[in-house]
Each structure stands twice: as structure tokens, then as C-alpha cells.
């Protein structure tokens, strides 16, 4: 199949083809032209459009032409198969039509470009371009039929099974309904449909099987009827094509029970008629459906016919795909025959000497005449003889095969209990207690022993814990630590609750009333601090505004003497700091921390580098709709 796919993606209908090419022309060529441009510019504009359409058509059509396989270039098996399925003439004609269309489009474009050189007004050039594109579109419209046919061919071609014509292959042929598909289902994993009506298999099927660590292809063909070549229909012709071109081992399957609807005489007659196709191929005649009737039970005339095969040196084998007897033998025999045939052919060819020269089987030369068998001590030999033949233990599987329908799996029969207890049903609980706890008969004794041990341990003081004496300080610390932990947990939970909902949050500057003296008081009192003494306090009640007094405007200065604006919220660099020295210290620490970063020269926020100031995708291209004035 590697040689034979049409590699295209979906091939288009002619209408789509035209639409795509025309819209591509509209998108990829300049769109604006005015009457007042120089005539050469106008001409160039329209010539470009005509040429672009021609190029696009040309490219697309030539990809179609190259993607479809040429019947002369592929393996004759596939060429024949394609002829059978798609009619060689029709196929070649369709591709020929496409080729003609290609040349016609090229000619049209050439003519009109020549004419465009003499266009002396915008109107004339535009009309010429319209005529050119219109003509190309008409040519494509006429190819609708060919394109449709090629699309169908491409789809069918991609679905052909991948048969490698050069590898080891077994080919199964015979009348319809003899059991070819059942056979291939048995030896490979190909899931071919098996039905009682004739011509269930309508095309070639492939399966793979293994033999001697090699991969073998098994090809199942549709049944062949016995009539001359000219009368054969497409389905049979596929089988004939496979027979003719694949170098494979042929398995001619016959139905000796005549259930397929054809007598043995007819089947032998078919064999004779397609015998020329079996030249130079290892052949095997397989008698199927032997579960119904065996070879010995046939009447003498039929036996004579089969004997005829044997006389002609064609091996005859029996099998039954229903009961699976003889199937593996047939496969092995066929594989062996093909392998030996292929080796023979290879030996006869000239390449063999090159290989044989490099092969050398080395056998060790015997040093002297005495034999050296394997050494087994005498005692062992005696013991072996004493033991007698190995008694094969009867497995469950054997029992199952013996009893067939009467067999039932009984896992309890090998229990190590007295016979009347074996099949008892044991509950899990009884009277509120677990039965598993009481299974052991000595369980009470064990429990008592354990308890005694435990008492001894307790007495000896294994479990004594050292109780440390904490002094007051440590106790206090413990207590405080507990309180802190509790408070932390509460804050964390409150924070989580507070974050939920996505309600709009006031910005920091807006949160005026958060930090108030009353809040301070209550929090510290909660912690146990005495807040009644006001004299040494750093906080004071905020002045409440009254309507009578106009506000005295004065510059507010903070402790460092700097005048600040009249916003109530403390700025961030002061918000957590108690006094000026600490502020200076904090600033210093901040600077110190930054020093290391600066020393390493790592890129900070201000060091972003823009590599490309005018990336092309932002500054070029047309807009889908609208103007391109702003970028």
C-alpha cells in the first residue's frame, strides 16, 4: 500500500475549487486601484491578478496530477487491481482531462496578459481581467465530472488493504462458501465476515500470522466461479488479479461436504481451469468441512478425483474450520512449502554466491575417538527407576473436559477439615460478636496471657512518663502560646471568610475608620493590658468636627518635621513603625537588602528589554473588515 495511495487531502468539487482560487486571488493581491494612477500601474495591478489566479489553478491541478499514482509506475498487482476496480481507461481519461484543463488555463492567462499590455483605461483593463478569470472558471466548471470521479477513486484507493506484493504470502482461493474466510479468521486476527450466502467476501482481505518467528501475510480472496475469463465480474477479477501477480503459496480450498452448493467434480473442474495461474507457486489443496464428512467416507469416483491431485504431486490436506482440527497443520505445511520454495529460488539466483561466500558453518573436529556423554550418578538413575513413571495429577481442566456440562467449580472440596464440616456455611456475626474472634480454640488462654504480661509491664513502670516541673515563667509562656495560637487560627478563618463573595473592596485610602482609638482600646483590653492610664499614652481621641467651628487650616507636620498632605491614612512606609529611629532603621534595612540584588546585576522590573519594536504581525497585513489606518 505504500506505493499506491493518492496522497491528496480531500480533492475538491469544481465549484469549491473556483471559489477557493478566486477568493485567494482577492485576498492575496492588492485590492485598491484608482483611475488616476499611471496606466502602467493599473496594467500591472490587473496583470498581477490574472497571473496569480493562473498560478493558483496551476499549482492545485498539478498537485492532483502528481498525487494520483501512474498505473505504469506501480507494482503490476496494484495496476491490475486498479484496472479491475476503476477501469484504467476512465482513470487515464480523467487525469488527461485535468491535464488539458491545466494547459488551457495557462494559455488563457498568457493571452489575456498580452492583451492587458494594450489596455489604455482602467475600465478596459478591468473588463479584460474579468474576462480572463471568467474563462478560467468556465474551464474548471467543465471538469466537474472528472474531479468527482477522481475523488471517489482517491477515497476507495485509500481504503484498499495494504498487501505487500514482495513478502511471504499465503493466498486462499476456491469456490464461494467453501470456508476461506473462516480459515483466515482462525489463523489470523483478521475479522472477516462469514455468512451462509455466497460472495460474502467482496474484496481482498489481509491478515497476518507468525511461523518460525517470521511474519506471514494471508490474503483472502472472494470466491471464483467456473466460467471463462470474459464473463467474470469485478469481484472475481480481483481474485484473479491477486492470483496472477502475487508470488505466494496457493491454498486451494475445497468443500468435500458439498454444502457450498457445488459438487466435488465442479470444484475440481474449476481447479483445472485456473491451473495456469498456479505455475511456479507452491500449491496445496485443502479439503475443508471434514467434520461433516471425512475423506474416507466419500464414494469412489470422488475419491478418484482427489487421488488425481495426489498423483500430480500436489499435497492434499484435510481440515475443519468448525472443529479446528487440522487448521494449524495446514498453515504449517503451507508456510514450510513456501519457505523452501523461496529459498530454492534464492539459491538459483545469482545473489546467492555472494551470501554463501560469507556463510561458514564451523563444526568442531573430534580430538579423539572416545565419546563423552552426559554424566548422571548411578544412584540417581536407580532412584528414578524406583519412582516409576510420573503420575500426572488430574487438573481441574481435565475434570471439566471430562464432565462437560455437569462440571461445577467447587473450591471447598480440598479443605483440610473433617468431611461433615467441609461444606458448612459459616456466618460472620453471631449474637453481636465477630465469629472470627473466636475461631482459635485457645483464644481465651492467649488473651489471659497477654493481660498478665501487660500487668507486669505496668507494674515495672515501662509506661511511666516523666512529668517535668514547669516554673511560673514557663507556665505563663505556655499559656500565652496557647492563646496566640488560638488567636491566629481565628484571624486565619476570618480572613478566609472575608475573602469570599467577591464583593467590591474599598481601596486602602478609603478605609478611614479602621484604625480608631476605641478599637485599639478594646483589643488591648482583651489581651489584658491596662488601658485606663491615659497620661503616658501615645494615642488620643480624634477630634470630632462640629458645624460651628470652621476648620483651621494649618500645615500638618509629622514627627520628622515634614509637611504632609491632609489625608488621614498613614502612608505605607510609616504604617507599621513606632518612631523615627525605627523608621530610619527600616529604611536602612531596605537599602541593604537591595544591595545584593544590584550587585548581582539581575534584571529588575525596570530592566525589561523589548527585542523587536515593530513586530511584523502587528504592523502589516490586511484587515478582514475595516480600514488599516490605526495600528
Amino acid at each position, binding site marked *: 500500500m505504500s506505493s499506491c495511495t493518492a496522497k491528496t487531502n480531500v480533492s475538491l468539487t469544481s465549484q469549491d475549487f473556483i*471559489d477557493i482560487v478566486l*477568493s485567494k486571488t*482577492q485576498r492575496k493581491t492588492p485590492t485598491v486601484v484608482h483611475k488616476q494612477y499611471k496606466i502602467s500601474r493599473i496594467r500591472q495591478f490587473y496583470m498581477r491578478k490574472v497571473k496569480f489566479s493562473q498560478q493558483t489553478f496551476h499549482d492545485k491541478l498539478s498537485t492532483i496530477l502528481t498525487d494520483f499514482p501512474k498505473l505504469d509506475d506501480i507494482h503490476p498487482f496494484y495496476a491490475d487491481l486498479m484496472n479491475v476496480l476503476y477501469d484504467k481507461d476512465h482513470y487515464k481519461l480523467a487525469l488527461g482531462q485535468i491535464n488539458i484543463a491545466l494547459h488551457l488555463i495557462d494559455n488563457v492567462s498568457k*493571452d*489575456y496578459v*498580452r*492583451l492587458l*499590455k*494594450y489596455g*489604455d483605461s482602467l*475600465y*478596459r483593463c478591468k*473588463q*479584460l481581467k474579468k*474576462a*480572463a478569470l471568467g474563462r478560467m472558471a468556465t474551464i474548471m466548471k467543465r471538469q466537474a465530472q472528472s474531479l468527482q470521479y477522481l475523488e471517489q477513486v482517491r477515497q476507495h484507493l485509500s*481504503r*484498499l*488493504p495494504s498487501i505487500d506484493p514482495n513478502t511471504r504470502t499465503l493466498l486462499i482461493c476456491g469456490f464461494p462458501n467453501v470456508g476461506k474466510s473462516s480459515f483466515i479468521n482462525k489463523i489470523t486476527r*483478521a*475479522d*472477516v*465476515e462469514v455468512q451462509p450466502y455466497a460472495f460474502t467476501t*467482496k*474484496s*481482498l*482481505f*489481509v491478515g497476518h500470522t507468525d511461523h518460525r518467528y517470521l511474519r506471514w501475510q494471508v490474503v483472502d480472496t472472494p470466491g471464483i466461479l467456473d466460467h471463462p475469463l470474459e464473463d467474470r465480474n469485478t469481484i472475481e477479477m480481483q481474485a484473479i488479479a491477486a492470483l496472477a501477480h502475487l508470488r505466494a503459496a496457493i491454498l486451494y480450498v475445497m468443500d468435500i461436504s458439498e454444502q457450498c452448493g457445488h459438487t466435488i467434480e465442479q470444484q475440481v473442474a474449476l481447479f483445472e481451469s485456473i491451473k495456469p495461474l498456479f505455475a511456479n507457486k507452491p500449491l496445496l489443496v485443502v479439503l475443508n468441512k471434514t467434520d461433516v464428512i471425512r475423506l474416507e467416507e466419500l464414494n469412489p469416483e470422488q475419491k478418484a478425483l482427489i487421488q488425481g491431485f495426489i498423483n500430480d504431486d500436489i499435497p492434499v490436506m484435510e481440515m475443519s474450520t468448525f472443529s479446528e482440527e487440522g487448521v494449524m497443520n495446514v498453515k504449517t505445511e503451507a508456510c514450510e512449502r513456501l519457505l523452501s520454495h523461496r529459498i530454492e529460488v534464492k539459491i538459483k539466483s545469482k545473489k546467492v554466491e555472494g551470501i554463501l561466500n560469507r556463510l561458514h558453518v564451523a563444526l568442531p573436529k573430534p580430538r579423539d575417538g572416545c565419546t563423552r556423554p552426559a554424566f548422571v550418578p548411578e544412584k540417581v538413575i536407580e532412584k528414578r527407576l524406583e519412582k516409576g513413571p510420573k503420575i500426572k495429577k488430574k487438573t481441574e481442566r481435565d475434570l471439566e473436559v471430562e464432565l462437560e456440562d455437569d462440571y461445577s467449580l467447587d473450591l471447598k472440596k480440598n479443605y483440610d477439615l473433617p468431611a461433615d464440616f467441609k461444606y458448612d456455611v459459616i456466618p460472620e456475626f453471631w449474637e453481636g460478636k465477630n465469629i472470627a474472634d473466636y475461631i482459635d480454640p485457645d483464644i481465651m488462654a492467649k488473651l489471659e496471657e497477654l493481660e498478665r504480661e501487660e500487668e507486669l509491664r505496668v507494674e515495672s513502670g515501662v509506661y511511666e512518663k516523666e512529668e517535668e516541673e514547669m516554673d511560673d515563667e514557663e507556665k505563663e509562656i505556655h499559656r500565652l502560646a496557647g492563646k496566640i495560637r488560638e488567636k491566629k487560627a481565628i484571624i486565619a478563618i476570618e480572613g478566609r471568610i472575608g475573602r469570599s463573595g467577591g464583593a467590591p473592596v474599598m481601596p486602602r485610602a478609603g478605609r478611614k475608620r479602621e484604625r480608631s482609638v476605641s478599637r485599639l482600646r478594646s483589643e488591648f483590653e482583651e489581651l489584658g493590658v491596662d488601658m485606663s492610664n491615659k497620661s503616658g499614652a501615645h494615642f488620643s481621641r480624634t477630634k470630632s468636627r462640629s458645624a460651628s467651628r470652621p476648620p483651621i487650616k494649618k500645615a500638618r507636620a509629622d514627627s520628622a518635621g515634614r509637611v504632609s498632605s491632609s489625608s488621614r491614612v498613614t502612608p505605607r512606609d510609616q504604617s507599621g513603625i513606632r518612631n523615627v529611629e525605627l523608621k530610619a532603621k527600616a529604611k536602612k534595612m531596605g537599602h541593604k537588602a537591595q544591595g545584593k540584588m544590584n550587585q548581582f546585576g539581575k534584571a529588575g522590573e525596570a530592566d525589561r528589554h523589548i527585542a523587536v519594536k515593530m513586530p511584523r504581525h502587528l504592523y502589516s497585513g490586511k484587515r*478582514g*473588515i475595516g480600514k488599516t489606518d490605526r495600528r
Partner: protein
Amino acid sequence: MPQNEHIELFQKRYGFRMDYQERQRKKKAREHKLQSKMAQKLIGIKGKIFAKKRYSEKVQLKRTIKAHEEKKTRKKEDGKVPEGAMPAYLLDRENTSQAKLLSSMVKQKRKEKAGKWDVPLPKVRAQSEAEVFRVLKTGKSRRKGWKRLVTKVCFVGEGFTRKPPKYERFVRPMALRFKKAHVTHPELKATFCLPIVGVKKNPSSPMYTSLGVITKGTIIEVNVSELGLVTQGGKVVWGKYAQVTNNPENDGCINAILLV
């Protein structure tokens, strides 16, 4: 079933999902929504193409609906015979009605009065020299302007050789020389691509006729041996006149109607 039709094989063996038919039906029922969404959203050239397609679909739909409705309504059959209906044994005869005879007589008289040429395009726009010719400046300093370049499509006969370039006044470029015309037979309604024999008359000016300039309305002579026409006497007709019906310089081809 071919080996690699996995989907079809699975469907054959195990059938479809339980809600498969339901889903298909619902999907189909939703299609009109997609159509309307597209119709509203598409703008620009895509919108125009879509609108055009949709319009033709709608026309078809309306036609079928109308046809169905006709079937539904019942009409009483009145036993009127359509005009011109004849019994079968009289069908071969060509009856000329009275009116037809009269009108053909009148037409004949008029033709004789008007003149020999009774052409499909009786009147055409006259082409001025400025339209047909373009001044070609020659000379070392491009000052001499006596040469003219023909800007319309022309026909030069077989075996045509130019005058020596130094002396030729009218330049007829090769790109604008055409040999074939697409000629339509007015009765058969079929078009053939026939070789031109010569230019008979250009209605704008006899100069154009002598130069072989072909514009709309020009009478040309075409080689009709392809059609296989035979005269009464048994002679083969090989040349006939045709009148040009398009502007060849705009379309890049010459379309003509045969004058029978």
C-alpha cells in the same frame, strides 16, 4: 464489506447508540438556527456570497412550495381546448394563420425599401479616431507624432507582412490581432469558433475597414465550411457574413451573430 471500513463494520455488528436517532433528529432540527446565525454574522465578501447562495435556495424552496400548493387546491376542469391544439393526424402540417401572412408581407416590403443589409445591430456608436488610434511618438527626441497605434482589435489576413517599420503609419500590435471569432447561429442557438476570412465593413469609417479594425457592429466574413451548409444547387457554402456583437477589446474575444 471491505477490510478497513471499521466504522461500518462496528455499526453492523453492534448497532447504534440508544439515543442515536434522537440526536440526529435534534441536530437536524437545529440547523435552521445555524443558518440564521451565519446569515447575521457574515459580512463583507463572504456575506455577499452567502446571501447569493441563500437567495437561490429560497427561490427553489418557494417554487416547490407553490407546486405543492397547486396540487392541494382543486380546480374545476372546464372543457376548453387550448388554442392551436390540433388532432394528431394534422400535426405535421404547418398552418400559417392569416395574420402571419400579412405580417410577413409587410416585413418583406420594408426590407426591400430599407436596403440590402438587415442586420441584428442596426445602429452602433461611432468610434472617433482619438478612440481607435493612439499617437506613437518616434524620433530621437520623441517629437515626431505621425505614427498611430491601433488600440482596437483588428484582423490582418494570412500572409500579411508589415510595411518597413520606418514607413508604417498605422501600427497594429500582434497582441490585438485575432484570427477566430465565436459565431452564434441565430436559429440553432449554437456557437462555433470559426476562422475570420476578412472584414467586410466597419460602420464607423471606411478607413477602419481597410485597416481591418473590428469594433462592435462590424460586419466580418467567416469561414463556415465547418457547418456543412449546402446551397440549392448542391454547392458547399464556405463563407458567410456575421456581425460583431461585443466590444472585443474589453473581452479579449470576438463574439458575432451569423447573418442568415
